[in-house]
């Protein structure tokens, strides 16, 4: 399970809408509990560095990735995963997403059909290099 509090959701929605109709992308930071529950504390917005059509593809530059790793170390957070948007497309990972996916990371996809129709889904790679859906929660209940 991954917890996206309303504040985090709003940051993601803002980036997705600002970048629309291109795909937005960035990093998710936070903590992982012993039971595997992930709490997102902050995000880092980065440029979509894909050359050419950015409406259907995204790419994160290696330097931005290194910045993100350092950002996590500086704050004593975990780099929990990557988010990106699917403009006018459901929040289901594509084959492009799967091939390039890393183990461990949560892949949060923001589907933007129109400004009023936004859906979130999160995905994790399993041992067979296939995506499995990760449940998203709004709040952490203790």
């Amino acid at each position, binding site marked *: 399970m991954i917890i996206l509090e309303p504040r985090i959701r709003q940051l993601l929605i803002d980036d997705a809408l600002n970048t629309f109709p291109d*795909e937005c*992308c960035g990093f998710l930071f936070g903590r992982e509990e012993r039971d595997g529950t992930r709490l997102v504390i902050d995000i880092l917005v980065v440029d979509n560095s*894909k050359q050419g059509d950015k409406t*259907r*593809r*995204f*790419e*994160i530059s*290696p*330097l931005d*990735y*290194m910045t993100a*790793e350092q950002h*996590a*170390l500086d704050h004593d957070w*975990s*780099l929990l995963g*990557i988010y*990106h948007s*699917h*403009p*006018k*497309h*459901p929040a*289901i*990972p*594509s*084959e*492009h*997403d799967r091939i*390039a*996916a*890393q*183990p*461990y*990371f949560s*892949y949060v996809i923001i*589907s933007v*059909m129109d400004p009023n129709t936004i859906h979130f889904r999160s995905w994790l790679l399993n041992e067979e290099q296939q995506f499995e859906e990760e449940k998203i929660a709004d709040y952490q209940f203790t």
Partner: protein
Amino acid sequence: MATVIIPTPLRKFTNNTARLQVGPGTIHSTVQELTQNFPDLKKHLLDEGGNIRSYVNIFIGNDDIRDLQQADTAVKEDAVISIVPAIAGGSDSPPFTKEELARYNRHIIIPGFGMEAQLKLKAAKVLVIGSGGLGSPVLLYLAAAGVGTIGIVDFDVVDDSNLQRQVLFGVDEIGKPKVEAARRRLEALNPYINLHIYNTHLNSQNALEILKDYDVIADGTDNFPTRYLVNDASVLLGKPNVYASIFQFEGQASVFNYRNAQGELGPNYRDLYPTPPPPGLVPSCAEGGVLGVLPGIIGSLQALEVIKVITGVGETLAGRFYIFDALNFESRTFTIRRRKDNPINGDNPTITALIDYEAFCGTRAVEERHLKEITAKELYDWQVRGEKFQLIDVREPHEYDIVNIGAELIPLGSVAANSGKIDRDTPVVIHCKVGGRSAKAIRELEEKFGFTNLYNLKGGILAYIDEVQPELTKY
């Protein structure tokens, strides 16, 4: 010592250590040292040839080693090496246009269906075999629902007597090929889909070639040879076959050869009926009639099952057989299972390629071997020349009242009881509406009573009206 920064996704292979110390040397020796100490890292860093994977970037400081000397790049004492996974992705199939989103809005807003199912419909390819009574509602609803690619197979032309139930067509299309009339109607309904038409008889020679490009087959045919052909072709190609059929006041539906989410394959038509009924036992709609609204009901159920098969929403009729009795308004659903002795995909299959289905169902063999036929023209010649012969009509009295050509009426069910009324010395021409029942009467008379002088009127009274007396009433 140089420092290697391990990316988060790979830290589970380095005992959750983010920074590792390595000796100086080259990138090549650094990677070797890492994979020796942490063998699980190897498959993530190196490909089968031992080279650094294309989606793994290695940086020294802020420089990509691809811009330096690749794996030979020197690693100095104070170097900071970063292993950086490539992060990329994107959405694949093209999105819906604004117009399509508006068109399919009532689907997209259904909880549990939504955009995901609508995209599956758009990506789906469905072949509808037969564009008649069942094919009409199936095609109309699948096209309206946004099935992205629809194929239509039919060899027939639109006839006035079709319009009582085949709601795809209108009076302007009478005489035109059904597939072309269907395409015009469906294009007018939904311009966002692709239509492919096959104006041909589906047969053992062309079936696999036509079916192979489709994901789902919808069988709305009205005869046994084509039904077995569609079933066998679907099984051989591993495609689900959504089946429906109708007769008089009764309709049937099922989903054959469907593999569910657990990977279990469901039964097919041959698990239900391993072999066809004797020829003539089950009349066609042209012979036995059908209530016009019935294909509308059953064809709509067939379209529903096609949509469920495509989208994975709900439970399909796979493994179940549905029967609707319109007269009593009763529905029954039976469980059907795969049979070990199924000749096409049981334990010891004997059918590994398509066979001659006309011969298998006995339809052609009987006609070719046993029946003497006479055409409407030849019968007219006999009449004009004043030949001596007996003319018998085996239809029902109410049909006889609509139109007759002066034959003696002996309905099929009473033929045996009235065999004494049939001449043995002169030729006897027997007819019905289109030739099916009269063929059955002739077989019965030949087998039970040894007649050898019987002729079947080819095409029945309808052919006679067309060719000889067009002023008579057709029904």
